[in-house]
Structure formats: structure tokens, C-alpha cells
């Protein structure tokens, strides 16, 4: 049984973060260089955390598996970042952003965490602008905004369709400034393969250099995991190919609790897969739903081109079912509706799994040039991939795995239950509940990295002396040997199947048994099939090459091995959560209109799992959620 102390401050929600900060212990500027902090990952959360701590004077080592810190997958976020600046004077406020996020997450997040996120949102914009992030401006030179799903205000700041890229380059530049100042040492092409914990406290990591294969030990006073999400367990997702669960999974196996692993966001607007060779799915930003109308033909046998189908024979299912939010319903609602109409045989495109996203009306009203200018790079991207011009014919889109709300359990300080181990950004479970609203992931990563972690980590560090354990400690020896043994085992299997083919099979299994809609039966079946596939992997993997060289097959195989264990945990969580909420739709629990039906009496909690062995059932601990500031309410986007 895990001991989970959420450390959420008491008192009114509006003052919680300020009061909490005032009560934290700090490390003085002269002492900070003595403390070494390791950051795993250099995306928005990792880079902003490493840069901020470096600037404060901590001694930081940052690791990423890519060849440069600038390539982390935060870079691919397109649409924007939320902040309750209320520049539009449309009634936005910290409270409103808090309310939207908590409601959007279907009341499965800690409300004081969510409030803090909303509170910090405006400072992120200020910080990014001060770094030179060129957000879109209006004619008077003031910042421009647009609207995203699940809200009734315009609070999203953007740089065309490349907001993530610009924010990441801002954080990356700040990180490089600290590298130049020698406060941060950046280790590229380096993958964390295990965590070293001694007497319940995190002491360091074991890392493999992906160019030379050299395995090294790194001791630290604290370790921060900013290693992103695990959407690639489905093989096909909008994640970058390298995204993986390995760092989080290693931490889980060393005692960190894994929270809500089954909460996976399926994004409604991705380009549909075209064949079996498909290696990833490409997202089309949700911002397109501002001007695009989603529809399918009413006739399942429709053969005409979309342009030739008259209005009356088109089914604008979101506009009809949700008149108030229309095409801007939250992601899970949009995704489920798309699947439902396609399952009924109304889908379009060669596979029948696609719906139209049509800009004809917006172009008629605003002019084709204006619409094209607004979404320029998205239209180009679409045309490049599909060979269709969205100005001439509607886009075809379909839901795809996009973001994982689940992650390592963390307290209000972003610390896991293992002392000295922190988790920030998508890698933790904290702020989005059972569904994340669009343009909120960038916000959370940067709130964690720029403003929360740099303060809270001092509270832990100040309670301990720096550098208590060095890499010659027995624990480092032991964990390093385990890492080496595991690599050697993988190389020695010499079977017939590539890691790629097993990963693909796992992906299909996960999509089928733990995808958009789940049932008890399908999940139980998944729980039987995954261990069998894992066995196949360990008996029949073919891994070319050796380990003392660059070996991308070995990197991939190591990550697939972890996904094969992790997928089982996801199914287990989805099975135990015997309700529907947000992204998690159990078909047994839905309203007459097919909406997720929560069971607040039994499931208003965070499910946290503790590792008990690869083939043993993990132990579940529940962190109850309280709803004082914002009482539980139905999540209704219809009226």
C-alpha cells in the first residue's frame, strides 16, 4: 500500500499557492551550486525546468535521447497555449480557466492543482514574450487570440500553427544560455535506462550513450523526470517515433506510483491512416474546428464527391447534437462521435474510417485567402500528406491517440512518492483529470518547469546535505549490472520477429481493447493477450547488431519491452475504473445520448498503482479527490 500525501495546502483555493510558497523551505544562492539535479528530457517541461534551475544556480545535468535538446516532441504542438489574460474582455478570469479545465477533465483532477495552473497561465505568456517568442499580434501590435474546444472565451495565444515549436525554442534558448554559463550540462543522444534508489531516496540514474553504447552512472541530489507521454503504446499515435514510457516505467518499477494510466486522449482531428505501413499519424490542429464544419453523408452508400452532396444530405452531427458548442465540443466528445458515425457505416475515404472537415462555409463568408492565411501551414501539411487541397475538397480526418493524462503520481510539489524523484509535464498525471482541453498541455509543461518545480524542489533539497552518495555506491553497481544484463538478454534471443512487428501488434491490441470505447469483456481479453505477446517478444525477438555502437533497433526493442508491460497496467486500470469519465468511456456506463456517465460515489479518486512484479498484479491505492471550490456537476456541452 502506497502512502500518498498529496500535500495540498488547506485554506481558500485563491490563496493556496501563494501561502504554500511562503511556507516552503528555500536553498540560499550560495548553496545552490552544491546541489546536483538531473533532468530527464528536454521538451517544454524539461528544458524550462533545467533552464530555470540553472539560472537559480543549481548544478543541473539534462539528458535527452535526440541529437539536440531542441527536437523534443513539444515542438510539434500546433494550435496554441491558453492563458486567462482576458484581453478580449469576454469574461475570462483565473476562475473561468480553472472551471473550464476542471470541467473539461470531468472532475478527475485535484482542484487546487488545477487552480494553480490557471493562476500561473498569464505569467507563462509574459515569460515567453520576454524570451522573444513571436506570438501573433493584431494591427495595433497587441497579442492576438483564438478559441479552442470546450470553452466560450478566446484565450488561446498562438504563433501560426507552430506554437509548440516557438515555445520550445524559447525554452531551448534559455537552456542553451545556461549551458553557456556552465550551470547546465546537456547530454544529448543519452537515454535513461534505470533509476537508482537507496533507502527510499532517489540517488541518480543509469544512462546509455546512444552513439557509443557506453553505459554511465550519474549521481544527483534529486532527479526530475520530464520524459513525456506514453501514447506510442498504441504504435500509431501523433507522438514522435521516439516517445516512450521507459523512464517512467523504470521509476515505477523502483517504487514510484503510476496514476490513472488508462486516461489517454484520442484527438478528434488527425489525418486517417492510409495503409499497414503507416508509421505514425499526423495531427491537424484542433484550431481548424474554429472554421471547419464536421460532417458525413447521411447515406451510407453515398458515392458522390463531397462537393456534389447537397446540404440536406449532409449530417453535421456535432452541430446537430451540440448546438451550443457545435464543432468546438471537447476532444473526447468529438472523437467518440466520429467513431460512432463511422461504426454506423457513414464514414468516408478508402478505409471508411474518416469524416469530413469542411471549410467551404468559412471561405464563402471570409474569403478563401483569409481562411488559407489563418491555417497556412496546416493546409500545406495536409496537402503534402494526402495530395488533396483542402480549399478544393474537405479534409478527411479521424481520431488518433494524442496525449496521455495519466502518468507518475505526484503531490502538490510535483514530487512522486519516492523522495527526491520529481515528475513534470506530460510525464506526471497532475492537472488534466480524465481529459485535457486543447492548448493546455503547453501551459502545464511551462507552469511546472518555469514556476512550480524551481521553487518546490528547494524544499526537499534544503532538508538534505548535498552529494551524500557517489556513483561508487553498491546500489549504482547493482543497478548498472541489471541494465547490462537486460541489454545482453535482448541481444541473445535471436528469434525471428523484429521489435517493430511486435510493437505494431501491441498497438492493434491496445486500440482494440483499450481504445476510444472500452468494455469489461474487451479489457479482460486484452489482459490475456498482452502477456502472451510479451512472451512472444522475449522468446522470438530478432535484434541485429551489438550494444557497443549506435543501434537504433536495440533502443526501440528496450522501449517496446517496457510498453509490453505497461499496456497491461493500462487495461487493468481501465477495467477497475468501473465508470465512464472524460476520455475513458466504458460502454456499460453511458447516458442515453452516448455521453460518459460518471460514478462520483465510487470513483471520485485517483487510481495509483504500485509495482509488485512483472507477472504479479499491481496494488491499487486510491487518492480521494475533494471538490470544495467547485462542486461536482454534470459535464454538459449541450446547453
Amino acid at each position, binding site marked *: 500500500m502506497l502512502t500518498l500525501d498529496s500535500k495540498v495546502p488547506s485554506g481558500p483555493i485563491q490563496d493556496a499557492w501563494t501561502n504554500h510558497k511562503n511556507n516552503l523551505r528555500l536553498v540560499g544562492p550560495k548553496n545552490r551550486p552544491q546541489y546536483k539535479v538531473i533532468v530527464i528530457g528536454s521538451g517544454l517541461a524539461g528544458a524550462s525546468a533545467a*533552464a530555470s534551475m540553472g539560472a537559480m544556480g543549481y548544478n543541473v545535468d539534462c539528458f535527452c535521447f535526440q541529437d539536440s535538446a531542441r527536437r523534443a516532441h513539444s515542438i*510539434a504542438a500546433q494550435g496554441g497555449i491558453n492563458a486567462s489574460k482576458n484581453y478580449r474582455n469576454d469574461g475570462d478570469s483565473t476562475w473561468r480557466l480553472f472551471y473550464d479545465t476542471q470541467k473539461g477533465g470531468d472532475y478527475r483532477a485535484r482542484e487546487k492543482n488545477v487552480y494553480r495552473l490557471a493562476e500561473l497561465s498569464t505569467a507563462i505568456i509574459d515569460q515567453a514574450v*520576454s524570451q*522573444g517568442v513571436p506570438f501573433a499580434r493584431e494591427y495595433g501590435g497587441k497579442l492576438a487570440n483564438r478559441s479552442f474546444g470546450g470553452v466560450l472565451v478566446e484565450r488561446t495565444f498562438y504563433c501560426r500553427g507552430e506554437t509548440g515549436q516557438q515555445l520550445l525554442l524559447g525554452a531551448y534558448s534559455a537552456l542553451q*544560455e545556461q549551458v553557456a554559463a556552465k550551470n547546465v550540462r546537456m547530454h544529448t543522444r543519452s537515454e535513461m535506462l534505470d533509476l537508482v534508489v537507496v533507502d527510499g531516496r532517489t540517488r541518480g540514474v543509469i544512462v546509455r550513450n546512444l552513439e557509443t553504447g557506453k553505459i554511465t552512472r550519474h549521481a544527483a541530489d534529486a532527479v526530475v523526470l520530464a520524459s513525456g507521454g506514453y501514447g506510442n503504446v498504441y504504435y500509431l499515435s501523433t507522438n514522435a517515433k521516439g516517445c516512450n514510457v521507459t523512464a517512467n516505467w523504470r521509476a515505477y518499477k523502483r517504487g514510484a506510483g503510476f496514476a490513472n494510466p488508462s486516461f489517454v486522449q484520442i484527438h478528434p482531428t488527425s489525418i486517417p491512416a492510409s495503409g499497414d*505501413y503507416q508509421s505514425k499519424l499526423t495531427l491537424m490542429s484542433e484550431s481548424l474546428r474554429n472554421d471547419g464544419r464536421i460532417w458525413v453523408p447521411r447515406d451510407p452508400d453515398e458515392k458522390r464527391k463531397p462537393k456534389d452532396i447537397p446540404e440536406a444530405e449532409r449530417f453535421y452531427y456535432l452541430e446537430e447534437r451540440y448546438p451550443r458548442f457545435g464543432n468546438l465540443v471537447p476532444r473526447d466528445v468529438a472523437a467518440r462521435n466520429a467513431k460512432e458515425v463511422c461504426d454506423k457505416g457513414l464514414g468516408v475515404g478508402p478505409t471508411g474510417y474518416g469524416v469530413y472537415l469542411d471549410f467551404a462555409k468559412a471561405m464563402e463568408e471570409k474569403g478563401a485567402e483569409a481562411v488559407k492565411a489563418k491555417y497556412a501551414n496546416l493546409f500545406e501539411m495536409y496537402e503534402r500528406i494526402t495530395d488533396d487541397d483542402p480549399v478544393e475538397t474537405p479534409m478527411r480526418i479521424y481520431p488518433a491517440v494524442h496525449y496521455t493524462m495519466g502518468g507518475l503520481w505526484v503531490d502538490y510539489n510535483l514530487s512522486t512518492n519516492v523522495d527526491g524523484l520529481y515528475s513534470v509535464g506530460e510525464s506526471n498525471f497532475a492537472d488534466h483529470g480524465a481529459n485535457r482541453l486543447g492548448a493546455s498541455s503547453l501551459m502545464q509543461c511551462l507552469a511546472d518547469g518555469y514556476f512550480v518545480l524551481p521553487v518546490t524542489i528547494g524544499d526537499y533539497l534544503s532538508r538534505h546535505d548535498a552529494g551524500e552518495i557517489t556513483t561508487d555506491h553498491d546500489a549504482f553497481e547493482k543497478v548498472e549490472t541489471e541494465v547490462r544484463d537486460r541489454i545482453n538478454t535482448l541481444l541473445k534471443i535471436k528469434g525471428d520477429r523484429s521489435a517493430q512487428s511486435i510493437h505494431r501488434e501491441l498497438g492493434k491490441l491496445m486500440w482494440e481493447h483499450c481504445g476510444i470505447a472500452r468494455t469489461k469483456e474487451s479489457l479482460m481479453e486484452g489482459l490475456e493477450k498482452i502477456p502472451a505477446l510479451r512472451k512472444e517478444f522475449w522468446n522470438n525477438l530478432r535484434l541485429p547488431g551489438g550494444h557497443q555502437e549506435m543501434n*537504433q533497433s536495440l533502443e526501440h526493442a528496450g522501449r517496446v519491452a517496457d510498453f509490453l508491460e505497461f499496456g497491461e497496467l493500462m487495461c487493468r486500470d481501465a477495467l477497475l475504473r468501473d465508470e465512464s469519465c472524460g476520455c475513458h468511456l466504458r460502454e456499460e456506463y453511458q447516458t442515453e445520448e452516448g455521453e460518459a456517465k460518471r460514478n462520483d460515489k465510487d470513483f471520485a479518486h485517483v487510481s495509483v498503482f504500485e509495482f509488485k512484479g512483472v507477472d504479479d498484479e499491481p496494488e491499487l491505492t486510491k487518492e480521494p479527490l475533494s471538490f470544495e471550490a467547485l462542486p461536482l456537476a454534470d459535464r454538459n456541452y449541450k446547453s
Partner: protein
Amino acid sequence: MRIKIHVWRQSNRTDRGEMKSYDLEGLSPDMSFLEMMDQLNEKLTGNGEEPVAFDHDCREGVCGSCSMVINGEAHGPKSETTTCQLYMRHFEDGAEVFVEPWRARSFPVVRDLVVDRSAFDRIIQAGGFVSNHSGPKPEPNSIPIEPGIAETALDAASCIGCGACVAACPNGSAMLFTAAKSAHLGMLPQGQTERFDRAKDMVDKMESEGFGSCRNYAECEAQCPKGISIAFIGRLNADYLKATMIEPIDRRGKMHAQ
């Protein structure tokens, strides 16, 4: 469709390396170029050979990982397109395709098609940032920025740091990369304070990393997957010239001496 592909194979930094040829059949025109490479690697793995190492990650044209020279052009035949956004429909059925890594003195080959681009990080470290700490900052709307300037800064900031400009340049110059960052920050009010030092420090670093000089071949712009304009190089040259004419003041040295 089928193709004959010639790929650069090199097992490590010191290996001499050579081109090797493979035949691939049963490809779909809707397959991306990297999905074709995946097929090749699956085939090689199946035959007990070592797969071709290549950098890739987001596969949506923005992370800047891919680094292939295809048929003599960085990122292949389609303009303003990264390798990962290139599709097999852009090639003829039965085509011969030549794939090589970036070739430049400052980008040593690590393995097969993978090169070491850490020199780019070091150019950024020389000044490609606005010196800053995290914490309270002025209200952004108190410093209005003309939208045209913000947009042009964003044009420059769209550089994905892939290194195609260097691979394309007969001199192996990194001027387009350096100019894009220098112009992005130099055009915005937030970047003014360090504008001239930045230009000088980044160019000096670029040269010390072994990149060549710019001679206006403009191949960098032609092969840049983000279509970054060489007009930014003009801006950088102007800033660099001004920086070298300003009397040097060692402000930081003075601060340390206090």
C-alpha cells in the same frame, strides 16, 4: 511500386564508408519516404543484416531530425519539404534513389545517415538567446510589436535547425541558420539589448566550428525545408558590420572585477 535505392553505409565515425544498393518492391505511392526506409530496415533485419541508421522523430516536418541528401538535394526533390514529409508518389515507379547523409566538415558522420550537428547547439550557446531568468516579466501588451515585424521574426524563427542549409552550401556555411536566429531575436524589442554582441558572437562561433563563409550561392534558401529567406543573411551582415565597428567594451569583465 518498386525502386532501387543506393544508401551510404558507414559503421562509425572512423569507418571509411561506402554506397550500397538494395532493391525494394511492393511500395505504395502513399507511403512516406521514411516509411519506405522502415520497409528497407525490416527487410534487412529479416535477412540478418544491420538496418540503416537514420535520425527521425516527429515525422511531421518540425523537429528537424531528418538529415538525408536524396538524389543530390538536401531533403530531396520537393521544395520546402522535409524528408519525413516526402512521399513515394514524388518518385517514379522503378526509380533509382541515392541517399546520403549531410556532408560538411562541421557535421561528422556518426553512422550511416546520422550526423553530429552539435555545432548548431554551440552556435546558439554563443548568443542565440535573450539573457533571462524565469519569473515575473512585464505585461506583453505594454510593448506593442507591429504585426508585420512579429510575422517576419516568426518567418526567421521557423528554422527547424535541421542543417540542410549547410549540406546544400558548396562552402558548408551555416550562415542561413545563424542569420535566422540572429534576425528573429534582432527584430524584436526583447532582443535589442544584445543584438550586436549576438551577431558577432554567433558568427565568430560559426567560423570557429569550421563552417565555411557565405558567398551568396543561395543554395541554402533553395533547399531549406522551411523556405527561410537569405534576406536574413543580409540583416546579419549589417548587424555584424556594425558590431565590429562599435568600440568593444568588456562590460562583463568589469562586472566580475567589482
